[in-house]
């Protein structure tokens, strides 16, 4: 096994184990921390594919900002095992069924998609470099990019409106 392969298997195992522990762990703070580890593992995969920009932005935005806000809320809610609401049995069953359906759809989609059978470019691909990505975003995909930024702007305005309601 080469070093890349060892890293790949290690990161994959880490991602799966920590993603499972997000769901399994009783304490929501541990769930958030496991989710952060999952993001690290996924970023590691991005970097193995030489998509450095996406890898680091994934860390900055998700692990560095969004998960901090998650932790914020969870720490302030003062959750402990006594007052955690017990979900009823049918809800749990429904969750399992819908999760299974989603997985079925994913498997079916990836089985017939065109990426099937292609080997990912590790280390020497340059699709994920900052320069390539910037050129693609601001030349080919400039309209969708700007539209999505307007979407973010509207979300921000909405948050401000909701925050101002009390005054």
């Amino acid at each position: 096994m080469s070093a890349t392969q060892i890293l790949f298997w290690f990161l994959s195992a880490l991602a799966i184990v920590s993603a499972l522990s997000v769901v399994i762990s009783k304490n929501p703070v541990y769930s958030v921390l496991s989710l952060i580890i999952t993001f690290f593992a996924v970023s590691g995969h991005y970097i193995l594919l030489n998509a450095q920009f996406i890898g680091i932005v994934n860390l900055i935005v998700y692990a560095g900002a969004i998960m901090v806000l998650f932790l914020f809320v969870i720490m302030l809610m003062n959750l402990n095992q006594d007052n955690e609401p017990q979900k009823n049995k049918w809800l749990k069953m429904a969750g399992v069924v819908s999760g299974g359906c989603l997985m079925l759809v994913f498997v079916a989609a990836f089985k017939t998609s065109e990426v099937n059978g292609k080997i990912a470019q590790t280390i020497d691909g340059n699709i994920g470099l900052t320069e390539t990505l910037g050129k693609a975003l601001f030349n080919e995909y400039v309209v969708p990019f700007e539209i999505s930024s307007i979407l973010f702007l509207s979300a921000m305005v909405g948050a401000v409106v909701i925050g101002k309601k009390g005054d």
Partner: protein
Amino acid sequence: MHSSLLVVDWFFLLEKLIMIIAIVSVSLVIAMYETYFERKIAAYLQDRRGPNRAGPFGLLQPLADGLKLFMKEEIIPNTPNKFLFILGPCLAMLTAMMTSAVIPWGGTIDVFGRPVSLQIADINIGILFIFGVVSMGVYGIMIGGWASNNKFSLLAALRGASQVISYELPMGLSLIALLFITGSLKMSAIVGGQLDQLYNITYQPLGFLIFFICALAECNRTPFDLPEAENELNFGYHQEYSSMKLGFYLFAEYINMFISSVVMATLFFGGYDIPFVNDAALGQSIGANWLAVLEAISLIGKVAIFIFTFMWIRWTIPRFRYDQLMNLGWKGLIPLSLINMLITAAVVLWLKK
């Protein structure tokens, strides 16, 4: 393919290992002596003498402090999250040390005919790496404060986290303006563009000012040291910590101060470039190795000035109130850095025409 693990470039590994050990120990020693100089500078600003008992001029004071912290009793409060309680200071220390990996500490030296760059990792996304690690730094504060099982610690941790998140935004925006000029995210390219040239501070004075203020806030230094405002929150997020775990938190702050000074010197003040001297010509006459030594000393000199400024500010300016802090961040610095970014972009476009 299968043997590529065996064909490891041992010299490369050894080189990087030595670099990492050297840089980590230099950061630790500098952080140690920062505590000494902090107390000395505070003393002189307040017309006192400062530490002067341990060794000549009190120079052994940091060692005595360290010994004291190590010998103190280790107390873990009654908390359900002992693991997180210990993880907090570890994370603070880890994130403080990691930034130094992408900083160029000097030019290339020549070791037995092999060129060795004085930088641990020259990655394409150097600045973004620093930014990513800085944004991780908030976890050390939050986890430690929460796991302490103490309302004061929790409040301080939340204050610290919201402060760090708020000031990351203007910091990033001021860096974007800088990147317009350098055109690269690589730290070595940013320093290379300033070697024997005008420093970036001449193009980005406002950007530097914003970055400096944000660096103060990110290091939780006065006037932004609200997470440890002792008159409101006892001792802040590390109130429940004792012994070396407390030492790690305090130490991480000093390392952060050192590293952010290095980053400012690298991004805005030419990095390891020796001011007023033509480095390339000097390298011709005294050789690359001596040049690298002089360059590293020059970088440390610039850093020392920044660290002094940090301490000077700490012992001069009183701390902000919390609403003032948030107003400054969101209503002052973010619009200012946006304007700075727009102006820089317009000028760069205009000059390139």
